[in-house]
């Protein structure tokens, strides 16, 4: 079978994959990609945001994924329903580094954003595969800035009554913007509900280069 990443040559395309725990962080995963893609749409980019159908229906704690695509060209691969070569990987919960191939298929220069209190050095020990293409790890203690919102509102394409970026999604999206500059922080702030958490996360997120972690052993 031809891999779909060889089917489409899209140099301007950035893929965002968010890993979360089923049910209780489902909205947060969705919020990160929706906030980033809505902000990018404001800048005139072509965008897409959706959830992984294979992971659904989710059960409590099961690893689930939400995806986003941002491109300055029209997205040709818009019916490819999984991000096979992500540029940005986000974990809404730190334990996801353990036992799951979160960095599968990442492109060179990819970044990993983790919601954690722990230092990147410690998390890096658990990541066994795909680190050669990883540029940096960004840690942000999003759980201390916002709470996870458990709701079915907004699921399956319905209108989200609780608001985009009301919970954990806001600080995590802010950390992504700090690490990659994929959208401007002002545009992100205009989309998300919990602006204070996003501002604090933008200031406090720690960026650690993987090169330094490898050299340190």
């Amino acid at each position: 079978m031809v891999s779909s990443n060889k089917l489409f040559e899209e140099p301007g395309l950035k893929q965002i994959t968010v890993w979360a725990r089923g049910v209780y962080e489902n909205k947060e995963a969705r919020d990160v990609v929706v906030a980033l893609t809505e902000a990018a749409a404001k800048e005139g980019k072509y965008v897409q945001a959706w959830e992984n159908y294979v992971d659904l229906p989710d059960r409590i704690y099961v690893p689930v994924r939400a995806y986003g695509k941002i491109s300055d060209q029209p997205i040709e691969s818009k019916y490819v329903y999984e991000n096979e070569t992500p540029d940005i990987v986000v974990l809404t919960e730190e334990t996801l580094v353990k036992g799951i191939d979160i960095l599968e298929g990442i492109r060179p220069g990819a970044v990993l954003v983790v919601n954690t209190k722990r230092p990147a050095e410690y998390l890096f020990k658990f990541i066994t595969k795909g680190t050669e293409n990883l540029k940096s790890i960004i840690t942000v203690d999003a759980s201390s800035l916002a709470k996870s919102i458990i709701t079915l509102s907004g699921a399956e394409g319905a209108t989200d009554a609780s608001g985009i970026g009301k919970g954990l999604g806001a600080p995590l999206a802010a950390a992504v913007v700090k690490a990659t500059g994929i959208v401007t922080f002002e545009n992100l702030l205009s989309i998300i509900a919990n602006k204070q958490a996003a501002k604090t996360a933008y200031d406090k997120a720690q960026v650690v280069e993987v090169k330094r972690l490898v050299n340190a052993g």
Partner: protein
Amino acid sequence: MSISPNEVPFAGTVPSPKTENEGMITGSWRTRRPILDTDKCTECLICWISCPDSSIKSTTAGMEFNLKYCKGCGICNEVCPVGAISLVPELDFED
């Protein structure tokens, strides 16, 4: 995550009398690990019968957790009458 569809058992069921299912390893769902305090444990088997994943075994050495399948739901911690089971963040362990 990435196993062939043929390997996934229909509706997640396992033919009896198998107790383990390689197609449905759920240990990666766990965010908190159950830890047993053997001094407090009376081996009353309430955790054993309550575990939804049958991940607790009663052995001659006491109760044992099967961490390959334990999802970290915390029911054992909840039902233990003597408070012998505590939940510790999974990332505190390096294995």
